[in-house]
C-alpha cells in the first residue's frame, strides 16, 4: 500500500506521460499527414462514436487485461518475466484441446474444465523459468524469451500437423468448437463478448489476492525486499515459483478467453504479441490490478483509434506504436519520477 500522496503523484505522472506520448503521436501526424485534423479526430473520436467500436475496444482490452495482470503479479514479486506470450499459447492450446476432444459434454462442465486446463497449461509452462530462476539462478528474462519461441513453434507444429482441421486449407487451425462453448455477447446486438466480465472478475480476484491474502503479502514482500522476507521466515524461492505460475495461469486464461470470445477455435499464431502488450500494460499500471484495467482499456482505445484512423485518414495504424513506445519509456523513467517527488517534497517544505 502506498500513502495517498505518493499514489497521487504517481497517477499524475502517468497521466502526464500519456498526454506527452499522445502529443508525440500528434506531432508525427502533423508532419506526415495531408489532413492532420481529420487523422487526429479519427484517432481520438471515432473509437467512441458508435457502439460497435466501443465493443471492439472492450474485446481488445480483454486479453490485455489478462496478460497485464499476469505480468503485474510476476513483476510485483520481482520476477521480470517476458514469458506471457508463450504461456498464453500453451494455455490456449491445452484449453482448446480439451474443447475439441470431449464433444457432447455439457457446457456447464466442459467450459470450466477448459478454463482450468488453460490455466494449468500456462502455469506449468511458467513454472519452468520460475524453477530455473529460483533454484539455478538462471536469468528469467532470457529463459522466458527463449521459451516463448519454444511455445510458439511447438504449438504451431501441432496445429499444423497433428490437430489440424482437414477442412482449414492453407490456414492452420483446429476444428471449430461447438457453438455453446463460445463466449456469447453480453447484450444482444452489442459487439462486446462476455470475456470482459471474466476479465473484470480476474481483476477483482487478483486485487484480493495481492492485497488481502497471506500469499499476496508474501508475493509482494519477496518482490520488495527478499532479504526481509527471508528474515521473516518466508520461503522466497517457492514464492518466486508461485508468482510466475499464477502469472502463467492468467496468461493461459488470456489465450483461452481470446479463443472462445473471438476466434472460435485455436488458430496458429493467434496471439501475435498479446503477451508483450501485457508487459506494457503492467508497466503503465505500476503493477496495480485496478491500474491494469484502466491501462488495458486505454491501450485498446488507442489501438482501435489507430484502426479507425487508418480507415478514416491517410495515416497507417502503426502510428499507435509511437505513442506506445513513448508511453513505456516515459512511464518507466525513474529519474523523472524521482525528480517529480523531490520537487514535490521541496515545495511541501517551502510551504511549511
Amino acid at each position: 500500500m502506498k500513502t495517498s500522496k505518493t499514489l497521487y503523484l504517481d497517477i499524475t505522472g502517468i497521466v502526464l506521460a500519456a498526454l506527452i506520448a499522445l502529443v508525440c503521436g500528434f506531432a508525427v501526424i502533423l508532419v506526415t499527414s495531408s489532413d492532420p485534423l481529420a487523422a487526429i479526430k479519427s484517432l481520438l473520436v471515432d473509437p467512441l462514436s458508435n457502439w460497435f467500436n466501443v465493443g471492439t475496444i472492450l474485446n481488445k482490452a480483454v486479453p490485455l487485461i489478462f496478460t497485464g495482470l499476469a505480468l503485474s503479479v510476476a513483476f510485483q514479486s520481482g520476477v521480470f518475466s517476458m514469458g506471457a506470450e508463450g504461456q498464453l499459447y500453451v494455455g490456449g492450446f491445452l484449453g482448446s484441446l480439451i474443447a475439441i476432444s470431449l464433444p457432447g459434454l455439457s457446457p456447464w462442465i466442459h467450459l470450466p474444465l477448459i478454463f482450468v486446463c488453460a490455466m494449468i497449461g500456462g502455469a506449468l509452462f511458467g513454472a519452468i523459468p520460475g524453477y530455473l530462476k529460483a533454484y539455478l539462478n538462471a536469468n528469467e528474462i532470457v529463459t522466458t524469451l527463449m521459451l516463448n519461441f519454444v511455445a510458439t513453434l511447438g504449438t504451431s507444429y501441432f496445429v499444423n500437423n497433428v490437430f489440424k482441421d482437414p477442412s482449414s486449407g492453407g490456414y492452420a487451425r483446429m476444428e471449430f468448437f461447438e457453438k455453446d462453448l463460445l463466449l456469447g455477447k453480453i447484450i444482444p446486438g452489442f459487439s462486446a463478448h462476455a470475456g470482459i466480465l471474466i476479465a473484470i472478475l480476474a481483476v477483482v480476484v487478483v486485487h484480493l489476492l495481492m492485497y488481502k491474502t497471506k500469499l499476496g503479502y508474501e508475493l509482494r514482500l519477496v518482490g520488495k525486499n527478499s532479504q526481509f522476507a527471508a528474515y521473516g521466515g518466508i520461503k522466497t524461492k517457492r514464492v518466486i515459483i508461485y508468482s510466475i505460475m499464477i502469472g502463467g495461469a492468467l496468461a493461459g486464461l488470456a489465450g483461452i478467453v481470446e479463443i472462445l470470445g473471438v476466434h472460435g477455435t485455436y488458430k496458429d499464431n493467434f496471439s501475435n504479441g498479446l503477451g508483450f502488450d501485457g508487459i506494457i500494460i503492467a508497466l503503465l499500471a505500476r503493477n496495480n490490478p485496478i491500474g491494469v484495467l484502466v491501462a488495458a482499456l486505454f491501450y485498446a482505445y488507442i489501438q482501435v483509434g489507430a484502426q479507425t484512423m487508418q480507415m478514416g485518414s491517410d495515416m497507417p495504424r502503426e502510428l499507435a506504436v509511437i505513442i506506445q513506445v513513448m508511453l513505456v519509456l516515459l512511464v518507466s523513467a525513474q529519474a523523472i519520477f524521482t525528480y517529480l517527488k523531490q520537487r514535490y517534497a521541496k515545495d511541501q517544505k517551502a510551504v511549511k
Partner: protein
Amino acid sequence: MTILLEMKEIHKVYPNGTAANRGIDLTVREGEIHALVGENGAGKSTLMKILFGLEAPTSGTIAYRGSPLKLQGPRDAIRQGMGMVHQHFMLAPSLTVAENIVLGDELRRGPLSMFRDQLKEQDEIRKLIETYGLKVDPLEKVEHIPVGQKQRVEILKVLYRGAKLIILDEPTAVLTPQETDELFHSIKALIGQGHTIIFITHKLREVMEISDRVTVLRAGKTIATLETKNTNQEEISRLMVGRDVLFSVEKRPAEPKDTVLSVRRLNAVNEKGAPVLRDVSLEIRQGEILGIAGVEGNGQTELVEVLTGLHPASSGEALYFGENLIGKSVAEIRAMKVGHVPEDRQTSGACLTSSIAENLILDHYRNPEFTWGPFIHKKKMKEFAKVMMQLFDVRAASEEAMAGSLSGGNLQKVVIARELSKNPKLLIASQPTRGVDIGAIEFIHREIVKRRDGGAAVLLVSAELSEVMSLSDRIAVIYNGEIVAVLDNDESLTEQEIGYYMLGVKKQQKEVAAP
C-alpha cells in the same frame, strides 16, 4: 622532517544531517608511517574520502606539500601523487593483474597507435614488482589469485600511477597473519623508497608494530596524535573508546533460572568456505542478558544468523529448551518464540517500501488470530499495529505510513516492537541501537531489561562496548570466530580488560571459557 600533509579542522555534515567529521586535525610527515585509529563510525573513512577527493568537506583546509589542495575528484588526488588502497578491492576479476594495474593509464605502441603495448606495460610492472618486492604474476587473472596478492595488485596500481602518499584502508582486515607479515615487509620497503603511508586500522598490535606516529579519532574528532614509541596499546585503546560511558541503564541484579539456549561446539563457514565460527559454546539462561563483545567481523553476524536459521552450520548444536535449532527453518525457529532484531534494519529488519502495519505483521500474518481463511484480517492487523505503535512509542503519521519515511530510531522501534510482540523466550538482538538517537537508545535498553526481568533470555550483540557493558549480566568476547572469554559483568570488569580479549591480545584458558 618536512610536513607532507596537513588537514585542519575538517568538518563534514552529510545532506541527511549526519555529522561524520566534527573537527579533525591530521598532520602527516614525509616518509613516516602514520596510523589512523578509531572505532567504527569515528570518522576515519569519511576523512579519507575527503582526502582522496571522493567527498568535499563542509569546512576545513587541506595543505599538501605546503600549498592548499582543492580536489574535484580522485583523478586530481592521483595527479597530486596520492594513492588509495581501498578496503574493498577495486579490481575487475576477469582482467589480468597487468590490465588491472594499468587500467585507465594504458601504454600504447606509439603516440598514434590504437593498440596497447602489453609488453612495455608488463616490463614497467615487473620493474615495480622488483623494486618493492611485491611478488605477483602480471599475466594471471585477478579472479585466480589469493586475497593477499590482490592487495599487492592494489598497491602496485597506486605505485604505477606515481603515488608518493599511500593510504591503506584497513589493509589487514582480510589477510592471514602470514600475509600481514608480508604486507608489513612491503610497507617498510615503500618507506625505504621515499613513500609516505597512512595506515588505517583498529588493530592496536599492528599500530605498535609498524607505525611511527598514531592519530586517534573518536566520534568525528581528533583525540590525540602520539609518537608510537612513547605510548602503548592500553593508552591508545583508552583514547579510542573514551572513558566516559555515555549512558547507564538502571537494572536490578539478574536472577537467572533455567537454561534457555545451550550452544555446543558450533562451527560455520562463509560462502568462500573459510571458517567463521570455531567451536562456539555458550549458555544463556532465563532472566539474563548475555552480551557478545568483539570487533565487528569476528563472527558475530554468522553466530546470529546460524541461531536464527538464516545461515547453515557445518557442525555443532544449539539446544533451545532441549530442542536443536540447527537444521530448522527460519519460520520454525520464529514459531518457537525466538525473537530476532537483525543488525541491519534497512535491509533485513524492515521493508522500507511497505507500510508500518505490514512491517509489524511479518511475524503474525500466518497466525489464525489475524487471518480468515487465506485472507489477512486487515482491520485486526491495523488495530494491532496501532497498539504496537503506542506501546513502543513509534512516532509516525499513521500505521499506513511507509516504513521508509521513519527516522532511524522510530524504524528500530518498529523492529523491536515486532520482535517483542510475541513475547519471545529468547531474544537475539544484534546492534539494537545502532544509528538511533539517545532517546530511542534509552527506550530500547529499558525494553530489553524489562524482557529479561520478565523471564526471557537475551543474547545481545553490539559493536559498542559501552552498550554491552551497561546491559549485559555476563559478557562473552568473540575474536576470529572463537569465544575467547566469558566474563561476569561486575564492578571489577574494565573496558581495558575486555579490550585485550577483543583485540586478540589475551585469551582465557579453555576450561574457564567452557560453561
